[in-house]
């Protein structure tokens, strides 16, 4: 009887170890990028932000996002951000071909440079505001450029996409979510 107890104790290290392995295996299988942050604002109202105008373009605030006619995107971009240039054509596609309303926040940028990019490459945005010191974007939990938020009709954040929206992202992630929102409350 006493020997059995000793027996049990000696298996403890092995059991603890195997539990650890389960956790490791899960991490490996998921293949997550450990430095990528999920947004904590999901399912919450888009925070109130104050943006400054870009000459020649309509500006917006969070009020535009509430009680809208449908889902919209808020895209944070800068003229000095290289992935933003790559994502631009897909933003144009979503705006022109899929008629998605995209609001742009120009992040910590020189207004002239931003205007130049829009003139040269086209404007996918329904309205644009500038967040020149980056403080407004902090309210959104933005930690890099580009980032894109999907907002539903009531002004709630449904998804945050980190990094550029490329073809795969557009087709497999962004558009499906937008369609899903459109189908709510038909």
């Amino acid at each position, binding site marked *: 009887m006493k*020997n059995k107890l000793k027996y049990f104790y*000696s298996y403890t*290290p092995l059991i603890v*170890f195997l539990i650890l392995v389960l956790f490791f295996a899960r991490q490996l299988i998921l293949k997550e990028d450990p430095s990528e942050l999920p947004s904590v604002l999901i399912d919450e109202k888009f925070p109130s932000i104050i943006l400054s105008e870009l000459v020649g373009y309509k500006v917006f605030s969070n009020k535009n996002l509430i009680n809208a006619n449908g889902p919209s995107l808020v895209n944070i971009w800068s003229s000095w951000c290289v992935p933003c240039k790559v994502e631009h054509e897909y933003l144009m596609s979503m705006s022109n071909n899929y008629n998605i309303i995209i609001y742009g926040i120009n992040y910590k940028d020189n207004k002239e440079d931003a205007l130049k990019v829009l003139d040269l490459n086209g404007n996918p945005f329904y309205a644009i505001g500038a967040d020149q010191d980056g403080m407004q974007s902090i309210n959104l939990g933005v930690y890099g450029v580009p980032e894109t938020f999907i907002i539903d009709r009531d002004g709630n954040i449904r998804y945050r996409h980190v990094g550029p929206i490329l073809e795969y992202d557009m087709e497999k992630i962004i558009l499906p979510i937008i369609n899903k929102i459109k189908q709510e409350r038909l």
Partner: protein
Amino acid sequence: MIIELGHFLLALALSLSIFQFLVPAVGVKFNSHSMMKSTSIIAYMSFILVLFSFLSLVYAYITSDFSVSLVAKNSHSLKPLLYKISGVWGNHEGSLLLWVLILTFYSVAVAILGRRLPLKLLSLVLSCQGLIAVAFISFILFTSNPFVRIFFPNAEGEGFNPILQDFGLAIHPPFLYLGYVGLSVTFSFSIAALLVGKVDTIWVKWVRPWTLIAWVFLTIGIALGSWWAYRELGWGGWWFWDPVENASFMPWLAATALLHSSIVAEKRDTLKAWTILLAIIAFSFCLLGTFIVRSGVLVSVHAFASDPSRGLYILLLLVFFTGGGLALFAKRAPYLKSGSLFKPLSREGALVINNIIFASAAATVLLGTLYPIFIDAINNSKVSVGPPYFEAVFIPLMVPAILLCAFSPMLSWKRAIIDNIIERIIAVFICSLFLASLIIIIYGGSASAFLGLFLAFWLICGTLYEFLIKVGVKSSFKTFIQRALNLPRSAYGMSVAHIGVAIFIIGVTVSSAWRIDIEKPIILGEKIIVKDIELTFKNIKKVEGPNWNADRGEFEIITSNGAKHFLYPERRFYPASQVNTSEPAIMSGIFSDLYIVLGESLQEEDSFAFRIYYSPFISWIWFGILLMAMGGILSLSDRKHRLGYGLKQV
């Protein structure tokens, strides 16, 4: 051609390692004397093959053979020779080859030094080492091959990150691996003991020296890494509780516990099952460290380019060796004969408490490092565990260990008499209280500074007191010298190592409590006074390096005794990767370091952002660690612990 030869030799080494695993195992099973005897030769050949394989890679680096993919990615024709060579192991594939080289080298060492071990035991140890070699060599050949060629080599090579071209960083991996792989030897010994079914005196006499060797290398390796981080990473810190640093610290904590428990096992023939378990766990921490660094499951500054498929392979290695070892332990350990008894208040008791504390410390570091993974799996939320956590829990954990450390050498084996001990504790207490208070009163400091100093003095006074008692301070000078010379080296080793810990604590305490941190913009020509040192920002000019351009500032430093020095902090920009780095300029001294970091140029003319750190006694951190390692080396040189001692009677 040479590279292909190296590749071939490695493949050959794999086959030989398979033999090194099978032959002795079969030999033990069927009691074939000749099979067991031939294992050593297989081990020697295996090492030679890996050595030449490794040398072929070194040759490729030295000759800057950029047709080899690894060399093209990690080396550059303009690198100095030393860094070309150290570039061999400055990447995932090459470092694994170094690991295997050291592994086979240790197998040879065991085979030679263990000539007089019982043949069955030696065979099982070499067999286990062979199996580990099989696992790692196949890992290299199947997932991380350093010998791959590319077809359109870049003429110059792409790897020229000057941050990595530092002497400390160059030799840090070899030392670290000598430590990790040393722990594989104690692991193999433990497996062998469990398989044989008994742990006799010969076994315990062997574990301690090998543990010491691994421990000394690990200690130096970690110190080198920390020293490099301090000098290169630009913010005056020397330890960040980063997952990769923790990955090397956990084996160290386990190895320290193992060191102390093997003393008990050797002297008193008890705690043997625990020692075996610790040896298995220590090596498992090494494998775990390899997993953390190379699999990409945790965020870290240091990680090699990570790859989940490699991570999976290492996880399998971990399951096989650790799982296998722990399973074997679970089955066999209860049947090991238990040893002699001791009362709680005794040398054994104190060492047991030491082990509990160090094991808890290792478990705590593991908990903190892996907690993000646990919470992510359970709650799907992201938390981060950083230095504030580790500092808050680790230091309180270590305090009792340090308190114990000073007077446990005064405790006798089996049971200690309390009265003498209490007298001595009180003496040491008063002495340390006095010295610590004196310093706080003179220089002013916080409660934590006081605690740190108190602990350091406690350790120094206690260790010196114990030394004086052993040598007999009351007798004549001649007897004193005689007894001092007759003291075994391991006794000196212990005292030196413990004093090293105290020096380390002083370094940590003083450099953080009395540190001066200045962050301000400085204009060209401006003079700043820090403590009794005058700094003048004399000049700034643009300089160019092979793949960077930088602003280099010039500071004239005048110390209190009038000596003049110059410091040149740089802020570099690498156009290829669009990265800015800071090269701090450090003036190191025994009693303080002056550390200048150049920041951005500011809007005002000739004005730059600077960070100046004045860290008193920070070098004592590395002196202390060095002293600890020297203590270990002293102990190793003790004749009694020389491998093979006492076997003539067998």
